[in-house]
């Protein structure tokens, strides 16, 4: 509600309004619902980390300590060297980002090392997220960066070093949406020559579509 609408609402409600809502002006809440969170409450939830390091907690972790932690907490799904077990994500590798089967990884794709700390801290290890201590998150972050040959084995991750890590794909992103980048028209008649209409691919016979009747399909095609 704009401030003029608020004043109008106040005028309409007249003397019926009491309490915090009757006080108007800057810095005073109009509805007044909820409470003011304490600094401790904010600190407990405010876990987001930015590329400039804002949000990184105190603490530090080394590559070698991270290697031990990784075996315990992460390797079952991501493999000892981050190669990825089964369908679990691969965390290391330098496959090209072009061609037929690009496989973007932390090393080849991620633009910021801070994102790695942020994500592991908020979402990993997958079965029990957000249980690692900051020192442990720093350590596995350092280990994964080292697996990707981005930092040396002597690297220690902390709030100062992590924002300074230069990720190989740092400048690989375009953050301004260039669309519309297609320019189809409202053509209604003879838009193509009939002999230009050719089926180039079909899902028929590929055998990968789960069934859409009966019970859920749990089969895994080759």
């Amino acid at each position, binding site marked *: *509600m*704009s401030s003029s609408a608020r004043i109008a609402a106040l005028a309409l409600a007249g003397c019926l309004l009491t309490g915090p809502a009757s006080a108007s002006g*800057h810095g005073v*809440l109009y509805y007044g*619902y*909820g*409470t*003011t*969170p304490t600094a401790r*409450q*904010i600190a407990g*939830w405010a876990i*987001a980390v*930015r590329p400039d390091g804002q949000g990184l907690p105190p603490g530090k972790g080394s590559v070698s300590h991270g290697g031990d932690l990784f075996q315990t907490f992460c390797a079952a*799904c991501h493999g000892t060297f981050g190669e990825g077990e*089964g*369908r679990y994500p691969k965390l290391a590798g330098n496959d090209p980002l*072009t061609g037929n089967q*690009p496989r973007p990884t*932390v090393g080849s*794709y991620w633009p*910021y090392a*801070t*994102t790695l700390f*942020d*994500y592991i801290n*908020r979402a990993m290890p*997958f079965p029990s997220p*957000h249980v690692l201590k900051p020192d442990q998150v720093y350590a596995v972050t350092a280990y994964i960066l080292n697996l990707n040959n981005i930092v040396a084995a002597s690297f220690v991750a902390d709030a100062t070093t992590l924002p300074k890590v230069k990720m190989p794909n740092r400048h*690989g992103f*375009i953050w301004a*949406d*260039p*669309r*519309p*980048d297609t*320019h*189809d028209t*409202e*053509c*209604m008649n003879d*838009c*193509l*020559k*009939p002999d230009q*209409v*050719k*089926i*180039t691919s*079909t*899902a*028929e016979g590929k055998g*990968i*579509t*789960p069934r*859409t*009747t009966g019970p*859920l*399909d*749990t089969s895994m095609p080759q």
Partner: protein
Amino acid sequence: MDQEATGPQAGHDARLVRPGRRAMFRAGMAAGMVALAGRARAEAPAPPADDPWSQTPGPGVVSRVYGHPSHFEKDVIRRNVPFLTATPQSSVSFTPLQSQQGIITASGLFFERYHAGRPTVDPAKHRLMIHGMVEQPRLYAMRDIERFPSISRIHFIECPANGGMEWRAAQLNSLQFTHGMIGCADWTGVKVSTILEEVGIKPEGKWALVEGADGAHMARSIPVSKLLDDCMLVYGQNGEALRPEQGYPLRLLVPGWQGNVNVKWIRRIQIGDQPWFTREETSKYTELMPDGKARGFTWKLYAKSVITFPCPEMPVNAPGLYEIRGFAWSGLGRIKAVDVSIDGGVNWTRARLDGLVLPKAMTRFTLPWRWDGKPALLQSRAIDETGFVQPTITELRAARGVNAIYNNNSIQTWQVKENGSVFDVQLG
């Protein structure tokens, strides 16, 4: 006891078509008939004979205290593609669009997308914290949120990976799996602007981090301008409480933008002066172009449409008159028109837009079609109020290659064969 679930009767005769099921229906009737005594032993399930359900009262009120669809609709369910993901807890299920009757997706059929499963959040304990570059940080309980002035709006939510399997070629022979990462609902909640104006955003506050209470602590950066424009904090869905699958007790609704930013189980909004570049906006939800560069923050869902009848799950049988049906939607506004082609895009006919035509909502279209029994290539093409015309897959590939995964809004082609069966194909 649920009588409906035990009867041998089938109830689909009046449906437009379900080839194969009609034959099943007759066989089922014949088998059931033997067991039935009395007048039902007629040769056909037609007038003047009564069926058993006409000769006995059914269960009374509150025999179902929370209703559910007819037993005969048991195949109409969310389904998944098991090989797509490592675990069902970070995965997706698909809305059965082939059976969706109007623009509102049934709450129990609305597609799911989780990054750490579906949490069970206690609404009494849930809180929304707003802090950062604001005049007055605030912590709200659900009863506080529900007290703010409220609005209801119909909007779709679509995962930008909808159709992501189809960039290189036609892969999945199913409408549910090629287009089912979408749903449309009537959402009730409070405008984000109401609350942001209450707490007061500092002039430098241009970005917001929105975060969920699930195990993924799902986090995305959104420009404050979008939050102030038309976003909602939603606690109601289709006339009842938001479903757990959709973020109970509170989710963010970001109309027209990719599903992932519509953070579910939302518990925190932090205002800042720059984006956070979280994993979900760098490693994921970015689009690799042929040169190896990637596009990020491509939030808007451009105009798209699909024919829901006929489709692979709902083929035609005998030649004759049918109604082509489908949905169109645009994250940029209202649908202005939908055109349908039966010859693979050579000629187009304007379809009828049916019912509500709302901004950033699914819109229904229909067109009568006399099928002559010959092969056909059915397509629909959406045009939105900005004048944007839905592209072909060939145009999309020319602009973005085949590795983008996200934002495939191409025209779908359904190949109808002489026997009436329907296949997902791509044209060149």
